């Protein structure tokens, strides 16, 4: 073989998506020999975080030709992993002119300040502005490429959510840094409002009358009091959350706050589901500021990289830029392993991204989860009245013409962009649009302005794409020792479903072992403390 990789493993993981990476970490953690490979040169597949140049490459990448098929040898059949059928479609990008506020450059350390990691905060005097044409923008972004960290699949963590629990328990959290989300916003009829989320917010908000405050407080308490699997909750399975809220004697504005921002629900969400979602939100309030969310610094890909590091720390072997084909016994037996770089790598278990599963196992008829994404680079915050920092905005369509759009705005503190810029992510369910992105066009017309009129932000760069995730439920008849992992489900804001999926796969492989246990106390601190 062309390299010195060991030839047999407990688990070979193909693809470095989040689910795959969690499984790799969990297996290595309990002492299993793990090989983790990815055909790309970067971590994360559809979960990747890219700088601006990487985005350009990704947009230009039309997908590779399928790997050559091999002749069967000794009853073994090679099945090519496929990603030639791209899961991403309708990609387009555009650049626009606009005015940017240049960060004040402190003497000498100009690089450091723009990097956003330095404490060198500029106390701005008169802001210096720069007017860019579309071509200028293009050149500017290219020159600042590495200062952007652009997520294909941006996601947040509920502070009291299961992902944070696992990160802390496994101590993977030690590799990561987070920022709290500062503003929860709602845009209805073109007007952006700050949503009061906590009791203290409700108390201080000026958008709600005193009488309503009391009703809202009471309702928030009621929502939190429903017990899982209780009869009350079961009875609410047949009505919508919207109808439930309408019966609560609260104004339409407050109904919208709860329906769209707190429960992050749609008009179709059942009352039981809406209550559960509201609970997840409300239970995480008050720990990290006035919102329930935290954002991983440098982007969502950091989380999967942190799991990969845990895996490596426990002996997992990492190989990027390397393809693998499956090796299957033609007699319908178990998967023997993978075929990679001209050699056979035996494996007890193979874990693979659904996007790489040979198409003969994928049922494309069954409904898949398809969503639209936009990445905007802008020059101003969408809500100047909010706190400086990350904002999460929901943009519902009250006439139900489309599902709500989720907007996540990241400023330079997150290291997503250099000072003077913002990165705005849009996500919406694909389905009701007659032409791609027509719902985004409405949001953009409401919130942004090409000329910056009314203090609205200007879009300098716009990337659009549609993602069609293959869920592991669409994969069937795989050999029992092959486990498939879904891609990012961007329609839910958090990582919960991916974490559950990873744990399920782990339990299927190692039913008697603990999932990501706390490391035994490693003597770490040698000297005094």
């Amino acid at each position, binding site marked *: 073989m062309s390299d010195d990789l060991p030839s047999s493993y407990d688990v070979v993981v193909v693809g470095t998506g989040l689910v795959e990476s969690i499984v790799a970490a969990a297996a290595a953690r309990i002492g299993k020999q793990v090989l983790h490979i990815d055909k790309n040169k970067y971590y994360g597949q559809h979960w990747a975080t890219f700088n601006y140049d990487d985005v350009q490459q990704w947009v230009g990448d039309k997908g590779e030709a399928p790997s050559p098929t091999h002749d069967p040898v000794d009853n073994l059949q090679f099945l090519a992993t496929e990603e030639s059928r791209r899961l991403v479609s309708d990609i387009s990008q555009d650049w626009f002119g606009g005015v940017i506020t240049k960060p004040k450059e402190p003497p000498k350390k100009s690089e450091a300040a723009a990097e956003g990691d330095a404490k060198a905060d500029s106390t701005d005097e008169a802001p210096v502005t720069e007017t860019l044409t579309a071509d200028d923008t293009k050149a500017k972004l290219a020159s600042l490429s590495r200062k952007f960290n652009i997520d294909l699949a941006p996601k947040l963590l509920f*502070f*009291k959510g299961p992902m944070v629990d696992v990160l802390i328990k496994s101590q993977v959290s030690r590799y*990561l840094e987070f920022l709290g989300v500062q503003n929860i916003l709602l845009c209805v009829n073109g007007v952006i409002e700050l949503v009061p989320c906590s009791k203290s917010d409700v108390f201080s908000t000026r958008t709600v009358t005193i009488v309503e405050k009391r009703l809202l407080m009471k309702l928030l308490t009621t929502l939190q009091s429903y017990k899982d699997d209780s009869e009350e909750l079961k009875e609410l399975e047949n009505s919508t959350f919207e109808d439930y809220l309408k019966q609560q004697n609260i104004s339409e504005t407050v109904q919208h706050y709860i329906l769209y921002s707190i429960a992050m629900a749609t008009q179709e969400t059942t009352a039981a589901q809406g209550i559960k979602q509201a609970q997840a939100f409300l239970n995480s309030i008050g*720990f990290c500021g006035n919102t329930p969310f935290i954002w991983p*610094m440098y982007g969502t890909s950091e989380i999967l990289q942190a799991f990969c*590091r845990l895996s*490596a720390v426990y002996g997992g072997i990492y190989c990027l830029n390397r393809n693998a084909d499956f090796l299957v016994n033609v007699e319908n037996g178990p998967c023997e392993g993978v075929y990679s770089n001209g050699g056979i790598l035996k494996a007890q278990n193979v874990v693979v991204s659904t996007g790489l599963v040979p198409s003969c196992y994928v049922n494309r008829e069954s409904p898949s989860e398809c969503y639209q994404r936009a990445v905007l680079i802008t020059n101003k915050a969408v809500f100047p009245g909010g706190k*400086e920092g990350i904002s999460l905005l929901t943009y519902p369509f009250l006439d139900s013409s489309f599902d709500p759009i989720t907007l996540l705005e990241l400023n330079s503190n997150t290291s997503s962009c250099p000072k003077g810029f913002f990165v705005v992510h849009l996500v919406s369910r694909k389905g009701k649009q007659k032409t791609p992105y027509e719902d985004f066009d409405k949001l953009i017309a409401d919130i942004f302005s090409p000329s910056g009129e009314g203090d609205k932000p200007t879009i300098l760069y716009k990337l659009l794409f549609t993602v069609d995730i293959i869920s592991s439920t669409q994969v069937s008849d795989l050999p029992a020792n092959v486990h498939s992992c879904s891609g990012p489900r961007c329609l839910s804001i958090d990582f919960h479903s991916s974490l559950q999926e990873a744990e399920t796969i782990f339990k299927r492989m190692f039913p008697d072992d603990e999932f990501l246990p706390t490391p035994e106390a490693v003597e*770490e601190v*040698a000297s005094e403390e």
Partner: protein
Amino acid sequence: MANRSGPQRPNGTAQAKICQFKLVLLGESAVGKSSLVLRFVKGQFHEFQESTIGAAFLTQTVCVDDTTVKFEIWDTAGQERYHSLAPMYYRGAQAAIVVYDVTNQDTFGRAKTWVKELQRQASPNIVIALAGNKADLANKRSVELEEAQAYAEENQLLFMETSAKTAKNVNEVFLAIAKKLPKNDQNVNPSVPVNITAWLTICVLRAGHF
């Protein structure tokens, strides 16, 4: 030191300043990265050091004047072997030691690549030290001291030949880095993220949960 800033504490308490830094190790497999850390942190050396398993990172402190410098030392965990080091490894690193083996010219070539990689990927202010390890095997050397020194000077790197086995220059290289690091007040600024564990701990304590 030009960078030492911050006025004396007004109340006159003799509280020593503590600064914490993330330091990453880079270099080819088997040049002795882990051995250097083990020597520095625990004063130990094992002739047949296993590839690193099980430690998230090690910490060790050194004192520079009135400041305690606490290093959080990250090892590659073997991810460098197949050129698959995750970018998160460099994130927020304020210092790096790029290690090569003085008896192996190839590892010196690779060290240069790592330096370039750091200059491309890491924070622009990162303090980089080049360490020619296994200096106890100088009779088998294939990388000349002068060659490495010239390269280090050209690229403004700290440079020492070290031996994890004899402990030669091991503490010294960490101390040299500690001296060069800017020891600004690391007051927590709410808009600047801090290490999540610390941050979560604060939040958790404050909330009285978990």
